[in-house]
Each structure stands twice: as structure tokens, then as C-alpha cells.
């Protein structure tokens, strides 16, 4: 049985934040979930995917976040408790659906999970999705800890059903990827079948209907505000005339700091966990009791702006600060040290900052950036494209996935990236206004996610570029989730179909389509050359299973290579491929047989033919 289905009520388990949220959802009777994988939310979906295989929970990996939200919204509009799960930037993709779903609402509980990523541990930006609650008018809740995250899911479903609208549950990486003991609660039965009640005059958003729905949404915001005023997730701790208002993980740093600084009698804390709409009256009362207030929130001054406005309305003149030079930054994530020091400074408490060792005599430690795995098919494709494009002035728009790592030298195969699917759309623009040859890269999962409309656009508007679709049979970056091009037999799962990228590309009307097997270096270079010469839209589909995934499926016949005495040490292999299986011993290049998977790319490019299979050696 899946560990998150355990019935042992009261048992304590160490759970990752994402597991705790999954458990909270299961306890709340979640019956339907849809997602597009994205760090830091991926393990949440993975656990629900696993649970769905041994229970009547319905779970799907949808093609993108907008589709996931729509899929879940329909279930919720049929009375089924549902969830749509995505990373913060995924909400941008889903935003079109979200904004008007806020008007229509739901009949069964619906929770939209937005996993934000301050510091951009694995994201292209660190946008603060609390503004999506304000923008859409939907209630938002934010946990401060793993335990609370679990509890909050059930509460979010209750609020959703009380107001008949989705609730946004916003986490940050340090919730999703923290681990703590969690107490298991009772699992509510799932109601998996719903009834859709037709009501076109409140569910079909033509202008006349939407005008009424907007009125209803505003009334709902007032109702939600009343709930926020009473919510157990908005609470005050401590006493004194100093005040701190904080949310999410910042609350942990604040609480620890106030304790460390012995200030619980002088500083009280207002923790906001139900954060849209803000509990206006509660905040005004809190301000009235304070001489000065500090707002501690990672990201944008979302609360600070609102609190200052509340103070103005209440005629209060006390200093209220948060984001400010020499105080808190809008950049990156906070930590206990930053928060303690700023609290001490702001409230005039003595505190010596931690004494970090003097690092001035410490030599620079060589960087250790993540690298494509040994044998990764992307490395082979990049190499082949680079060789095929030799002599051409190129622009390489890229996309989001493991292959984004190809931007690092020595591969250096990425020039532009803004979001999922942008490789294709931007290729259209780049090729129109530059004389360079535009060659762009997109992974299979990303192509399904948002590359297709760009390619249709390219064909229709008769653009001129080459799109390389890196088809490695999985969504590798986020942990090998399936996508529509995957053969689900690999997961021993029936009832799925498979969408062929090649047929799709041809059906769109691309006239020059080339399939390459990137481990065959010479053939690939030749085929790519021809595709690059084509005037118009050409597509190269580079097919080879992700090495790490193949390892997981036990499909990898690891046949390592070694470097023989024929090596004359010009290091073409190391310098052009940067495969992590290479290492230098003394002055000689070597191959780590544990890492080498035997893709044989290096063996094919070595001018001395010095790289040979280990087998032959024996």
C-alpha cells in the first residue's frame, strides 16, 4: 500500500512538504487531480499519480497547466473535489482559465496549488503568485510549515465549498521541499462521480452573464474576507508595542528570531495564513496596538502595500516598513539570519550577527554546475547540430528542460529563452528580422505543452527556421513523468493512447521533417545539414531515450568505453562534449567506467580512434 494511504490515525511520519500536501488532499477526500509537472511541486503530483494506481482517485498528467486547470474545473463543476497542481509560472499558462473560472465558480471543492520558487532554485523567474489571488479575486491560503500544509488542504476545500469557488493554496520551495513529522488524520471517503447541473445563465460566460457573475465575485470577496477575519490561520502571538506581520516560511524565521532575541514580551507577531482577502479589521486592530510595525514577507510587498493602506484608512501614523534599502529585499529567499538581524535593527535590540569565517585566504573552489548526464542524448544532438551548422551564423532559441543545460560551455547551444514553448514562437520573430540561420531546440514534453501553436504559426506565416525536437520519451527534468508521446506500457498502465510527434508535425503541414538517431554521429550531421539548407520550416526529430530514464527502466546495456594508448591527448572529446564520465588523471584523459553508458559519441569523434569498448580490451 502507498505510504500516504495508511489508516493509522495519530501516527507520526516524516513527510516531505509535497507528500504532506498529498496526504492532506487524500484526507480531505480529494477525488480528482490534474497537473503539468514543475519543480517545486513535482513530488506532490508523483504521489497522487502513484495513489491513483491503487485507488479510485483520478489523476492525470495533462498536456499543460491550462488544460489541467480546465480538466479539474469541470470535475469541480460536477461536484467532485478536485485539485489542479502547478508551479508558479504554470499559473501564467493557466491564468486565462483561472480568471474566468473565478467568475463561474465551482459546485464541489477545488484547490489550485501554486508552488512558488523564491531564489529560482529551478525556475526562470521568482514571480510572487499572491498577486494572482488579488487579480482573480479568489481566496488564498499560505502554510508556514509542512504540518500546517497538510491541515490547510482540508481547510481550503471547506472554504472552497463554503464560497463555491476555487481556493488558491500557495506554497514556496521551502514548504514543498522541507521535511518534518506529520500526524496522520482520518481519510474521508472519495466521491468520484459527480452530477453536472445545467445552468447556462451562470456558467456560460457571454458578456451579459459575466456582468452578473462579476457582481457575485465581488460579493464573494466580502464573504471570504469575513472568513479570513475569523480564520485560525490568521493569529497573533506575543505581546508588546512592536509588531511584525508575516506569512509563509518567513513566519518561522520571525518566530525563531523573536525567541532568540528574548523579545516575546516586546514584539507581537501577526501571522497571516489566509492571505487573500486580508483580514482587514484584524490588521487595523493589530496596528492600533503597535508603535511600529515590520512586515516580513519574501517576494513583493504584497502585504506591506495593503497594510499601509489600512493604516491610512484607520488614521494611524505609526511607521510601517518592510521592503526598503537596508531592510528587507524583494530579491530571493530569506533565512533566519537575515530576518533576525533586520528585526534587531528595526526594533533597536542588541544582537551580534553570526561570525562567518574569513574566507579571504580560501582559494576559489571550482564551480560544479549541473551537467547533462553521461550519455545524455541531448549532448549528442547538440554536437551534431553544431557540426552541421559550422560556418553558418546561427541563433539558437532554446526551451525548458534538461537540454537548457546545453547553454553552458563548451556546448553553448542556447541563445534565448523566456518560457515553456518560447523556442518556437521566438524562432518566428528572430528569423524574420535577422539574416542568421535560426535553429531552435524543444523537448518532447515541452513541445506538447506549448510548442504546437508556435509551429502552426510558423507554417501558416511561412517562417524560415529549423526546429529540433529532442524526443527522449519522457519529461526528464522534473523526474520522468509521462507525456502524450510516451508509451504507457512502460509504466504497465493500460487505457492510454500515444500521440506521434512525427505524425503531428507532418499534419501541421511541415514539409521538411527529418528523423535522426543522435548516437549515430555522422549520419545525424548529414541529415541535419540537409534540414538546415531547407528554405521554410524544417523539423528534425532527434529520437533517443533519456539515459537516466532508460537506466530506471533497466533498458540500458551499460557497455563502457576506455581511452587506449592511441590517445595523443588533443582532448577533442573532453573539450567538445563535456561528458561527466571524463576525468583527467595527471595529464591523461580517462573515462569513469561507472558513469560511462557506452553511447560511443566520443569514440566516433576521436580523430585517433583511441576510444574503445572496455569489452574488447579484455
Amino acid at each position, binding site marked *: 500500500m502507498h505510504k500516504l494511504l495508511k489508516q493509522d490515525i495519530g501516527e507520526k511520519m516524516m513527510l516531505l512538504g509535497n507528500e504532506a500536501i498529498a496526504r492532506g488532499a487524500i484526507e480531505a477526500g480529494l477525488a480528482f487531480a490534474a497537473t503539468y509537472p514543475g519543480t517545486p511541486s513535482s513530488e506532490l503530483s508523483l504521489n497522487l499519480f502513484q495513489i491513483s494506481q491503487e485507488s479510485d482517485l483520478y489523476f492525470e498528467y495533462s498536456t499543460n497547466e491550462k488544460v489541467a486547470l480546465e480538466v479539474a474545473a469541470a470535475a469541480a463543476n460536477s461536484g467532485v473535489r478536485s485539485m489542479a497542481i502547478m508551479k508558479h509560472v504554470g499559473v501564467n499558462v493557466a491564468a486565462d482559465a483561472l480568471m474566468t473560472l473565478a467568475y463561474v465558480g465551482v459546485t464541489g471543492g477545488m484547490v489550485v496549488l501554486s508552488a512558488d520558487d523564491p531564489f529560482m532554485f529551478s525556475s526562470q523567474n521568482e514571480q510572487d503568485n499572491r498577486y494572482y489571488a488579488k487579480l482573480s479575486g479568489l481566496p488564498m491560503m499560505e502554510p508556514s510549515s509542512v504540518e500546517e500544509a497538510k491541515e490547510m488542504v482540508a481547510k481550503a476545500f471547506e472554504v472552497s465549498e463554503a464560497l463555491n469557488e476555487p481556493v488558491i493554496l500557495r506554497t514556496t520551495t521551502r514548504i514543498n521541499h522541507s521535511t518534518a513529522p506529520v500526524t496522520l488524520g482520518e481519510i474521508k471517503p472519495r466521491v468520484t462521480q459527480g452530477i453536472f447541473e445545467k445552468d447556462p445563465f451562470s456558467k456560460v460566460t457571454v458578456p451579459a452573464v459575466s456582468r452578473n457573475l462579476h457582481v457575485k465575485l465581488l460579493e464573494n470577496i466580502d464573504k471570504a474576507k469575513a472568513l479570513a477575519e475569523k480564520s485560525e490561520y490568521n493569529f497573533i502571538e506575543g505581546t508588546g508595542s512592536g509588531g511584525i506581520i508575516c506569512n509563509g516560511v518567513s513566519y*518561522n524565521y520571525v518566530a525563531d528570531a523573536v525567541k532568540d532575541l528574548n523579545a516575546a514580551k516586546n514584539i507581537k507577531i501577526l501571522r497571516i495564513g489566509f492571505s487573500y482577502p486580508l483580514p482587514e479589521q484584524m490588521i487595523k486592530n493589530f496596528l492600533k496596538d503597535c508603535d511600529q510595525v515590520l512586515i516580513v514577507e519574501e517576494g513583493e510587498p504584497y502585504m506591506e502595500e495593503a497594510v499601509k493602506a489600512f493604516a491610512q484608512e484607520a488614521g494611524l501614523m505609526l511607521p510601517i516598513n518592510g521592503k526598503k534599502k537596508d531592510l528587507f529585499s524583494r530579491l530571493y529567499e530569506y533565512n533566519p539570519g537575515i530576518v533576525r538581524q533586520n528585526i534587531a535593527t528595526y526594533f533597536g535590540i542588541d544582537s551580534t550577527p553570526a561570525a562567518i569565517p574569513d574566507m579571504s585566504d580560501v582559494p576559489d573552489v571550482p564551480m560544479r554546475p549541473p551537467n547533462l548526464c553521461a550519455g545524455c542524448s541531448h549532448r549528442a544532438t547538440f554536437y551534431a547540430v553544431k557540426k552541421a551548422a559550422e560556418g553558418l551564423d546561427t541563433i539558437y532559441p532554446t526551451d525548458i528542460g534538461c537540454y537548457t543545460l546545453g547553454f553552458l560551455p563548451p556546448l553553448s547551444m542556447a541563445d534565448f529563452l523566456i518560457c515553456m514553448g518560447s523556442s518556437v514562437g521566438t524562432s518566428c520573430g528572430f528569423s524574420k528580422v535577422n539574416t542568421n540561420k535560426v535553429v531552435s531546440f524543444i523537448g518532447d514534453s515541452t513541445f506538447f505543452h506549448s510548442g504546437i501553436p508556435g509551429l502552426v504559426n510558423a507554417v501558416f506565416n511561412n517562417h524560415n527556421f529549423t526546429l529540433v525536437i529532442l524526443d527522449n520519451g519522457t519529461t526528464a527534468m522534473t523526474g520522468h513523468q509521462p507525456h502524450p508521446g510516451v508509451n504507457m506500457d512502460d509504466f504497465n498502465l493500460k487505457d492510454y493512447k500515444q500521440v506521434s510527434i512525427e505524425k503531428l508535425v507532418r499534419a501541421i503541414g511541415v514539409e521538411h521533417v527529418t528523423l535522426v538517431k543522435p548516437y549515430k554521429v555522422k549520419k545525424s550531421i548529414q541529415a541535419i545539414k540537409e534540414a538546415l539548407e531547407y528554405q521554410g520550416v524544417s523539423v528534425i526529430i532527434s529520437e533517443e531515450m533519456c539515459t537516466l530514464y532508460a537506466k530506471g527502466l533497466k533498458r540500458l546495456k551499460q557497455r563502457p568505453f576506455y581511452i587506449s594508448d592511441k590517445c595523443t591527448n588533443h582532448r577533442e572529446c573532453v573539450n567538445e562534449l563535456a561528458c561527466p564520465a571524463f576525468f583527467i588523471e595527471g595529464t591523461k584523459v580517462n573515462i569513469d567506467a561507472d558513469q560511462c553508458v557506452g553511447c560511443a559519441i566520443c569514440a566516433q569523434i576521436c580523430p585517433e580512434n583511441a576510444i574503445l569498448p572496455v569489452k574488447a580490451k579484455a
Partner: protein
Amino acid sequence: MDTKRLIIVAVGGQGNLLASSVLGEAALVAGVPVRMSEIHGMAQRGGVVESAIVFGEAKSTIIADGEADVLLGFEPSETLRALNKCHAGTVVITNTAPLPPFTVAIGKGVYPDLDQLQDLIQSKTERLIALDAVALAKEAGNVLAVNMVLLGSLIQIGILPFSADDVKTAMQNKTKKAFLASNLKAFDLGYQAAAG
């Protein structure tokens, strides 16, 4: 109970996530409050993986620079890189078997001298325990048990609020049965090595 803050740094694939999960479980077994956080997005692509584990009454799950009581490094240059997490009273435990990053192979950086590295860490912290955890793991019969060797050393120094037995119980819950014997042996070898 005093709060104890532990940072573990490793290279993706060295098994530090399992090590921290064993420690979390051990704390749960011993009834010690524990919270931890990990950045493991690109763990499998050879990047640096850092875990922060906070034992005792604290709400934070991360550790600021200069605030770790113990630094456990799975790779010597990564231990050195993480020195900014330490203060003068920090105890540092490091594996001495290097895994040079790829940037060294392509000439974009020089791997630090191992003796100098140890002197530097020693001079800036309370105490350094340096051991070849790879050799000890091999001796235990499981080259992948580097994580368990280092856990043994970590428990030997006695800073964390639970016993070797708590950790061994946790190992039984968290590690694969087939490797339990070699893992336990690795743990003991690491424990003895730290005892000097």
C-alpha cells in the same frame, strides 16, 4: 533542549538524501523535534546538493551562513565551499576522497590542494574530522555506503541529541534490506574512524 543545526553538502548521487532521511527518522524514533530542507532539483545532474537539518525547538528549516553547529561534507572541495555556513565553534566532518567537478577537466578551475584544504578548515573552525569515507565504504563491502560511514562519524562526535542505536533503528526502516549488513558495518567503521 538546545537547537542543533547541521548542514550536509554532497554531490548529486552520493546518497546524502538518504543520509538525511535516516537522521530525520532517527530523530523521530528518539522523540527529538526535527525539521529539514533540501534543494534537490538537479541532484541527478551532478550538481551540489545541500540539506539543512535543524534538531530541537525551532521552526526554521534552513540555516543561515555562519550558523551551522556541524558541517558534514561528502566531498572535500564541497566542504570547503560550504565553509561560510560555519562559525568558530563549528565541528566539520569531511570525506577526503575527491570528486573533481567537470569544470576542472575542461580547464575552468583548479581543484584545491587537499592538505591545504584541511589546514584551512581546521584553522577556521573548532575541529575537523577528515576521513576517507570511500575507502571505509569499500572495506564495509559496499562502495555506495559512503553516506553511512559519514553518519557513523557524525554520531560519534556526540553533538546530535540521539544515540547510535536510534540511527541504527532508523537505518533498518529506511535502507534496503539487502544492504543493511554492509550499511551497519560502514556506520561502525565511520564511528570508529571519528573516535581516532
